[in-house]
């Protein structure tokens, strides 16, 4: 990972971390948004959900979006996966404009959303069934993913027989089974207890390193964002827009000890100020 450009910021002393990443887009960024906005129609007229957004996510980058509730983060994710058309602008995934569900992404939601009537293996194979790909070709891959996430031996279990953390791991396997280049994660560990959550974060980083996937992860938790990300995008209140994009210059691989690093704490503090400008934190 390239070190972040450090420029002293006169207005915010001590914030030596670079505000708004100027990391250039590679020639072919995995995800590219140009002027993407979203407006919902309702009875009281149009409600702006997202103001025009421009950003890109490079290949194999861990990109985290952090923002308050209702800032349109989930809308963003649905638009990138092709489920929801943007009201304006264009989205490119792997260079192709997105107009309909393209299947080049794996999605993980806050809830594991495993189908209760399918066993773990069949749940992981769901994308293969939906895309009507040959099952036998992907079965070894599914088994390998389950092994990688420590779920070997649970293939034949039904979802309710697994703990919340294990269910979410299975849903990560499901997002990866059809080998998409990109993973979209919407508060994937929001429903888990704090301890499981930390463990899952470490695990997710390992999985991302091993598979080289591009990850777009959405979260409420600022420490989680900084811990995981190569870059953090901070969103404003509704209608959502980009408040800042930060580079995270922490070396990889990171362990939980990285959370004690002064760079980490400073960056967390810095991002927090975006949301609590009037609070005692200043």
């Amino acid at each position, binding site marked *: 990972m390239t070190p972040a450009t450090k420029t002293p910021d006169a207005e915010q002393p001590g914030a030596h971390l670079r505000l708004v990443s100027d990391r250039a887009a590679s020639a072919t960024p995995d995800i590219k948004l140009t002027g993407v906005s979203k407006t919902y129609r309702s009875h009281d007229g149009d409600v702006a959900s997202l103001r025009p957004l421009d950003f890109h996510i490079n290949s194999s980058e861990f990109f985290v979006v952090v923002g308050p509730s209702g800032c349109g983060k989930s809308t963003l994710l*649905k638009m990138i996966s092709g489920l929801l058309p943007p009201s304006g602008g264009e989205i490119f995934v792997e260079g192709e404009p997105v107009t309909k569900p*393209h*299947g080049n992404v794996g999605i993980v939601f806050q809830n594991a*959303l495993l189908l*209760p*009537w399918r066993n773990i293996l069949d749940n992981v194979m769901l994308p293969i*069934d939906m*895309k009507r790909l040959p099952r036998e070709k992907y079965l070894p891959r599914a088994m390998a993913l389950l092994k990688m996430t420590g779920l070997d031996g649970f293939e034949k279990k*039904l979802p309710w027989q697994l703990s919340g953390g294990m269910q979410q791991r299975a849903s990560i396997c499901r997002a990866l089974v059809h080998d998409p280049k990109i993973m979209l994660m919407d508060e994937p560990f929001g429903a888990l207890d704090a301890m499981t959550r930390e463990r899952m974060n470490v695990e997710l980083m390992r999985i991302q390193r091993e598979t080289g996937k591009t990850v777009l992860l959405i979260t409420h938790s600022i420490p989680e964002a900084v811990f995981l990300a190569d870059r953090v995008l901070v969103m404003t209140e509704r209608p959502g827009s980009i408040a800042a994009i930060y580079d995270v210059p922490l070396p990889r691989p990171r362990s939980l000890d990285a959370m004690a690093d002064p760079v980490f704490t400073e960056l967390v503090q810095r991002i927090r100020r975006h949301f609590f400008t009037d609070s005692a934190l200043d």
Partner: protein
Amino acid sequence: MAELKGRSGVAKALNAAWVRPFLFLIFIVVGWDVAIRLFRIPAYQIPAPADVAMVLWQDWPELLRQAWPTTNATICGFLLSAAFGIPMAMLIAGSKTVESYVYPLLVFSQSVPKIAIAPLFVVWFGFGLIPKVISAFLLGFFPVVVSAVQGFKSVDPDMVDLARAMQGSRFHVFCAVNLPHAMPAIFSGLKVSVTLAVVGAVVGEFVGSNSGLGYVLQRSIGTFDLPTMFAALVVLALLGVLLFWIVDRIERFVIPWHVSQRADIIFAA
């Protein structure tokens, strides 16, 4: 009861699920008999259990013969309500337009007492099987639709999005996600429906028929033959229980994964 306690085999038998309602039934019958003796209720008001049992014992071939047309009409009506109710629920749950047009009318139609319009079916279709089937269908239809609509609508939209994002076609997603998800609700509707279909068939037989348990009921009320009437009621109740049990068995087979069946899975594992 006290002398049974010591023997573990009997105690085990007493704990079997099917024995309990049976014991309770015996309790009710005894209470019934005692009440008649105690309050000197005349036989033309409530017959004694022994008299009913006697009719059941003596006339069972005749009762069984009369149960057949009723069963036939019930099953036909029930199958029709499932065959029309489930697709109707799919349409209502799938389209806001269909829902806004059809659903209120459907609810409205339910407040029409079936017994009031049942004679019409006899006028239209004669004294055969058809008016009974229609009557059973009309009673069984509504619970299936209401439950199935509820089932189809309670699918997590994120789950559907997830399947759609994997490029599943509408039909594919429906079969893989929506339909199995709605199954428990559909089955709870079917269970209500099957018992109501029995009532519907009897209503059909009440208004115009020369066979079936409804006809036996009608005739025995006319002649104040209360033991026969109660015997027919017992057979009807048994029919309802049997049909309910069959649907319940099918449910266990179709949705073994559901919360309500989980104890069984652990047993099997």
